[in-house]
């Protein structure tokens, strides 16, 4: 592939607008502090993402917010070449990746890959979390190959 050496870019900041509810707010507040926290059911120990009002396993509500180091592996990905909106024209190619986080009963976090050439992206590759500060109070996860 001729574009194997092309560096992945990122979708534009202005399309990122967080609208947290009471269940997702702790995640984003921690993200703004560059901490990854995942809600874990206090009744049965099941993690859940996105954060939600009920445990899908036991239907209990209470959670403990457990810190995670953000190291994971690419579960799958796509390389977006075509901008579906004019706003994305200067952002392609970018690489949305689904990243599985170990020790979370299979929770997956989705983030664009950074610091990577398109030809190097593979399912299973180890990645680490890189927080992307979009604006004051808004920080989202991206991932880069783990060195």
């Amino acid at each position, binding site marked *: 592939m001729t574009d194997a050496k092309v560096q992945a870019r*990122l*979708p534009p900041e202005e*399309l*990122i*607008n*967080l*609208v*947290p*509810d009471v*269940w*997702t707010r702790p995640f*984003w507040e921690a993200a703004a502090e560059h901490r990854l926290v995942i809600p874990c059911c206090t009744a049965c120990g099941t993690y859940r*993402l*996105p954060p939600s009002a009920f445990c*899908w396993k036991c239907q209990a509500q209470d959670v403990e917010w457990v810190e995670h180091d953000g190291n994971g592996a690419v*579960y*799958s*990905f*796509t*390389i*977006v*070449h*075509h901008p*579906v*909106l004019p*706003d*994305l024209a200067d*952002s392609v190619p*970018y690489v*949305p*990746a*689904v990243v599985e986080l170990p020790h979370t009963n*299979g*929770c*997956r*976090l*989705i*983030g*664009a890959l950074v610091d990577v050439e398109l030809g190097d992206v593979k*399912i*299973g590759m180890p990645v680490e979390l890189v927080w*992307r500060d*979009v604006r004051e109070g808004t920080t*989202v*996860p*991206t991932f880069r190959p783990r060195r």
Partner: protein
Amino acid sequence: MTLVDKAAVVGVGATPYYKRGRSLPQTPFEMAGKAMLAALDDAGLSVADVDGLALYSFGLGGDTSLFAQVMGIPEVRFTAMLTGGGGGAAGSVGLAAAAISSGMAECVVSLMTLQQAASRFGASFAPKGKPGAQYSAPPTPEGNFIQPAGLMGPGQMFAVLAQRHMHLYGTKREHFAEVAISTRENARRRETSIMRDELTLDDYFNARMIADPLCLFDFCLECDGAVAVVTVTAERARDLAHPPAYVRATAHGGHGRWGQAITWMGMPDDEYASSGHRPVAKRLWEMAGHGPEAVDVALIYDHFSPMVILQLEDYGFCGVGEGGEFVADGNIRWPGGSIPVNTHGGNLSEAYIIGMTHVKEAVEQMRGTAVNQVDDAAVALVTGGPASIPTSSVLLAREPVS
């Protein structure tokens, strides 16, 4: 008690199919009305016979109350809508059969209407579109976990599933190409098709990549238009204009943890690289009393070519992980394949009316009047889109089981 053979599709009708935005100045509502009238006329029925509307989320282009009022339906006895986001055209006919077999209604219209003038499905999960855009997705607490990565269109999201399938099973772009090319070959013979030019393997591999591994020809069209089908009791069906297409079986739904599927990406590992249809397929075959071996023609929802392969696996036409080789071996070709797929040209090449063209084709195959007629076709499978649940499917048959 099941609905097997209690109802039959007796009328199909459609507006012309338009490229995205070209149906203006018609309103979506108007196209829905035209399609319904065409389907009733096809059946030898009129608005006076209609007593039910069984729809799928986007189906009407307006509200059922206004539709009944404007079209002059004498008495409405049943209205229901299959929920979801893409999976329900086939299931809306199942809903009609459920209404009829339960005695709630006798003549039920299912409709799919689409107009993408103001906005487009290709960017349907983007947080920003044109002002007033019908299909853009404003940020939500759940969407916040996917949009910031740049996943904003269904094609990008299904590309992620396709990528996983390739990784697990060695599925190749050549396999996706076979779906696109075989479907195009079917479309080329039809006057209704929007895409009638030959599509070669070179064309496929020279096309621009949209969301790797999906290129331009892996994507369905973006269209306007409406398709309606009329379902009545089996008794009544025998006296109408065409041979009935009996509703042999139908199912909709899916595993709860398939859930929002591509818009959350947290589906269980053992079915992630699937179409989400496995539980629906299982119940469909149980209701029918037979499996895929009895199906003569399959109208498989084809928004993105890999998802045809994944559905062929999930409905048991081949084993899980074997779909790529299965299509590469020529099995889905018309004529001559072991299970001709999308003889009408599908969403990929005829027109994208969210899968209702697939129902129309199944009916025509059962009547023996399809443009690309499968010889002696007696059972047709129609599936709704792999998407968030419910996904759905319906089996139509030329003869009752008994």
